């Protein structure tokens, strides 16, 4: 999965989000070792200081932990990952609802469109 960075938002918050997605989707499995700051920075073509900042935040949030001698690892706490997943999903939905609102759709209208589209998809 490549790194898709938008130009109008702080880079470090986008890095946090994208690494979060990679953890939730299992690209970085629980308990596995994360590549080094330098490797990640090069992969995403961003400044290592920015990557460092993003990783520190993820560590603070508990998704990553540092083993002093051997580097950074993904948490093994499945509950924690589930929470992060939930949070990412909520963010996506909020963004979607925001867009629907700007198109002039109310809550119930939005809901009915979704359910009718899901019905169609089933058939």
């Amino acid at each position: 999965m490549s790194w898709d960075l938008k130009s109008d938002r702080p880079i470090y918050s986008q890095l946090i989000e994208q690494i979060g997605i990679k953890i939730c989707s299992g690209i970085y499995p629980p308990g596995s070792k994360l590549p080094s700051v330098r490797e990640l920075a090069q992969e995403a073509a961003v400044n290592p200081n920015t990557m460092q900042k993003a990783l520190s935040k993820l560590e603070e949030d508990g998704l990553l932990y540092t083993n002093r001698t051997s580097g950074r690892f993904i948490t093994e706490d499945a509950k924690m990952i589930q929470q992060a997943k939930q949070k990412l999903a909520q963010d996506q939905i909020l963004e979607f609802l925001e867009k629907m609102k700007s198109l002039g759709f109310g809550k119930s209208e939005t809901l009915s469109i979704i359910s009718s589209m899901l019905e169609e998809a089933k058939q």
Partner: protein
Amino acid sequence: MSSILTCKNLSKHFGSKKALDNINLNIERGRIVGLLGPNGSGKSTLIKLCNDLLTPTAGELQIAGNTPGVETKKIVSYLPERTYLNDWMKVSEIIQMFQDFYQDFNIDKATDMLKRLNINPNERLKTLSKGTKEKVQLILVMSREAQLYLLDEPIGGVDPAARDYILDTILSNYNENATIVISTHLISDIEKILDDIIFIKDGQVVLTKSVDDIRGENGKSVDALFREVFKC
């Protein structure tokens, strides 16, 4: 964090033209800094002052506590806007020359980068294209283990693919104690790798800020902000 480059009330006049007018700056170690401004804003003048190629009209400039001179040249790696290398020399000869000149030159790094960019060390410089010459020059500059890199328009003449490689090179050779100052107006290409930016206009510093602060506060990229600040 200690600073690597400081300017105090720095001015440089050419006759009645004020190329730099009372500049105060403080650049810390371990940062990648973009020196951004339109043509003729004073970017190159500032970089030349740092390299002792020009002397200030007023004020002072210090690099790691020293005024530009022999001591600072040992720790500053400079990519000038124009090439100064002898055309008749082979790439390998120039590399040899750099190794003789600079204690901190890492020849393995240079050879490795030449290989990755498919540049034949046995070619003479005059047979290379403009873009390839620029690549050679950047390789020379980035192969030094310097404390301060001053890159004046490093990506101007090279194609987008090589540009990516060059940015990659800058990132991979960068160490935590070194600072890289990049002057350019190709902002969108480099803003992802910058920590901080300095906007300079008519010889004056109009803004110094971190890239993430700009994006966070203004909700737009540095490139977009630049277009706004320097709207013609």
